[in-house]
């Protein structure tokens, strides 16, 4: 490696003397950093991208937190609170376990929902209540236990339950709380008619019924969870997720997915699609073109006519046809394969013309005299001389492949299991993100696609200028 650098020092220097080259490499480093960050920052996203369960605790289609701060809108971020700090006691045969979570609410906005995860270790019937201690002392008691159907057991087992702001028992309890505090519930004949996601954090007045009107109540909140049983019981874990009207760095999409995680994972996937496709096309094109040019004659004629036919077929409609044929089974590998198969013809033509020229040089004849086989001559003596061209076209082939994949994904023909930028755009299109103003669903992936294309185009052009003697600037 160091030998490579010392040997090519002048070329590298020349490459970086071009602003193109510097910008391209800087952009590429940015994308590589994203690729490195993806598995660290969002480890399980790749396998869970289309899973509903993995994202069910997030708010739906909310903007990023920094955006709400920027436009100075009242917001409540999506937060997760967790405690395992339980106090267990035994009062003459009655076992009790308590966990308290405290939240200091300073946000100007209201949440849209909440989720409780409660993990018990128990062996007999458990009675559970959750008391929400509010700053205005209008405490709410939620009969959490009534909403849980504990599996019957004889020995101690661990069991986790999930309760949300849509759980009927919790709505019922809130309904009772509202009516006991003399809120006029006309128009809300039953608990099923109210939406409670924001109510825990709202001021208790008539406006609480609608989230748009409700006034946020700031201060210290305490969530005190009690569990009672006649057998040993303990709450080993209590987790509260409060869904805000803002989420993380890039908000969420219509399927509650974290857009930032998707964008991060888009970088390694795009780089992989781009480099693999470009590499495959390059290898096919180089070998095909050089064989054709080197052997010449009728073989050359036939091979080049095949190229003419393939090159005159419009690729995108053909790809669409193939992918419709593969349907939902169209994995990323099939897409890479198809783009490669239809992307090598231009390279083959250039490689052929170079091979025609190089095969006339005496050193090819000298190798033949020395006893080299045709294959050896092609791979050792002709193709290495095409490498300058190959590097440039490798770099220029990457954005072409990425854009093709993005177009196919946007049309809904990509691999649905992977968070590619094209897929995110496709989803934005599906939920009419532009009309609803969900800009975080289409601007960032669009910019990222444009940026990665630019990176490789810049690098490719700089490489071409440095390596291609015909357009080299001296």
């Amino acid at each position, binding site marked *: 490696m160091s030998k490579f650098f010392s040997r090519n020092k002048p070329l590298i220097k020349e490459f970086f003397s071009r602003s193109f080259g510097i910008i391209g490499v800087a952009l590429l480093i940015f994308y590589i950093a994203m690729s490195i960050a993806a598995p660290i920052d969002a480890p399980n996203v790749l396998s869970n991208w289309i899973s509903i369960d993995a994202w069910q605790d997030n708010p739906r289609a909310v903007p990023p937190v920094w955006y709400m701060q920027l436009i100075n809108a009242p917001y409540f971020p999506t937060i997760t609170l967790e405690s395992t700090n339980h106090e267990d006691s035994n009062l003459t045969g009655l076992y009790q376990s308590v966990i308290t979570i405290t939240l200091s609410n300073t946000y100007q906005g209201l949440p849209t929902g909440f989720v409780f995860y409660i993990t018990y270790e128990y062996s007999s019937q458990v009675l559970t209540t959750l008391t929400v201690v509010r700053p205005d002392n209008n405490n709410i008691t939620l009969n959490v236990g009534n909403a849980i159907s504990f599996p019957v057991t004889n020995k101690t087992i661990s069991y986790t339950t999930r309760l949300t702001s849509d759980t009927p028992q919790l709505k019922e309890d809130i309904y009772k709380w509202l009516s006991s505090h003399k809120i006029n519930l006309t128009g809300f004949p039953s608990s099923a008619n109210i939406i409670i996601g924001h109510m825990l954090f709202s001021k208790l007045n008539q406006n609480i019924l609608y989230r748009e009107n409700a006034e946020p109540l700031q201060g210290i909140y305490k969530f005190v969870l009690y569990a009672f049983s006649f057998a040993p019981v303990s709450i080993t874990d209590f987790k509260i997720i409060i869904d805000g009207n803002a989420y993380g760095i890039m908000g969420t999409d219509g399927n509650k997915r974290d857009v930032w995680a998707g964008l991060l994972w888009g970088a390694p996937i795009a780089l992989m699609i781009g480099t693999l496709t470009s590499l495959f096309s390059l290898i096919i094109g180089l070998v095909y073109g050089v064989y054709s040019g080197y052997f010449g004659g009728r073989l050359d004629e036939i091979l080049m006519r095949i190229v003419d036919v393939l090159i005159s077929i419009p690729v995108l409609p053909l790809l669409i046809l193939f992918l419709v044929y593969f349907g939902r089974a169209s994995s990323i590998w099939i897409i890479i394969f198809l783009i490669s198969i239809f992307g090598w013809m231009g390279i083959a033509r250039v490689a052929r013309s170079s091979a025609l020229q190089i095969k006339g040089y005496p050193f090819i004849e000298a190798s033949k005299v020395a006893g080299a086989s045709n294959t050896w001559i092609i791979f*050792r003596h002709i193709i290495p001389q095409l490498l300058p061209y190959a590097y440039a076209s490798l770099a220029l082939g990457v954005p072409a492949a990425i854009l093709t994949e993005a177009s196919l994904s946007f049309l809904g023909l990509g691999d649905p299991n992977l968070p590619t930028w094209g897929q995110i755009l496709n989803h934005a299109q599906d939920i009419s993100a532009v009309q609803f103003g969900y800009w975080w669903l289409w601007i960032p992936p669009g910019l990222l696609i444009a940026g990665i294309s630019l990176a490789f185009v810049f690098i490719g052009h700089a490489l071409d200028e440095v390596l291609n003697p015909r357009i080299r600037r001296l």
Partner: protein
Amino acid sequence: MLLEIRNLKTYFFTSRGIVKAVDDVSLSLDEGQVLGLAGESGCGKSTLAYSIIRLIPPPGLTVGGKILFENTDILELDNDTFRKEYRMKKISMVFQGAMQALTPVYTVGEQLYEVFKYHMDVNYDEAKSLMEEQLKSVALDPSIMRRYPHELSGGQKQRVMIAMALLLKPKLVIADEPTTALDVIVQAQILNLLKQLQSKYGTSMILISHDLSIIAELADKVGIMYAGKLVEIAPALDIYKDPLHPYTQKLLKSIPRLKQKVEKLEFIPGVPPDLRNPPSGCRFHPRCPYVMDICKKVEPQLVEIKPNHYVACHLYSEGGKR
């Protein structure tokens, strides 16, 4: 006898007709002998060389004759056997285009090592000492192995080519205009080197040149070719002292001399014939000063006029003028 060529015919099947570049040529070469082949450009001397190493560029084909190398007809061998067993190992070649005969992307050492790779199972370290020795024998510093071709001068490149050609100690080396494109001093050095190496290894050599003075330096035996035919072949001294064929005579007169004062350099009037449609009879007859009727009709055969001196000319057959 190391090499015997019998009635070799190599034609180029171009779209505009068949070019008979080598037509019915027979000659032989003993071990350790140097054969010079001379003639104008396009007379088929290079094609003859390429026929021996079986690398005639398409659309050329050897259509007839035999090339017996150590009594094996090498034209009968299949391509792979010939490539692996003969090229470089038994028959090697030094090119005229020394300037471009090395691949620009590899070092000299890598390219020399390739020769070993094609033919034997040796690793680089084993081959290295052999290569160093070989480079020393062509008066090059072994450190040149780490250099790329563009770092070498023309003479150095030609020396590398010679080293490469002799690397596997072949029985026969074909030197096709080994000194063209080199300046005169380097030419002399290369010729001396060839001479020295040839006598050192006892290699047979076919030296091809349009320059009779270069051939005179090295050759034991000289063949003169004209329009795809061998017109005269004789020991070197005989050719220079007593050329028989009118073409040979003219060719020798057209060489500028250092020691003799020459009024005017002679040249041979006319142009070499179109090999697609060569003249009937003797192919030299349109340009021959001694042309007779028979020359236009009957093709002369190579006849031994003096011991080992063969000539194809009607002047020396029965009924000829001399």
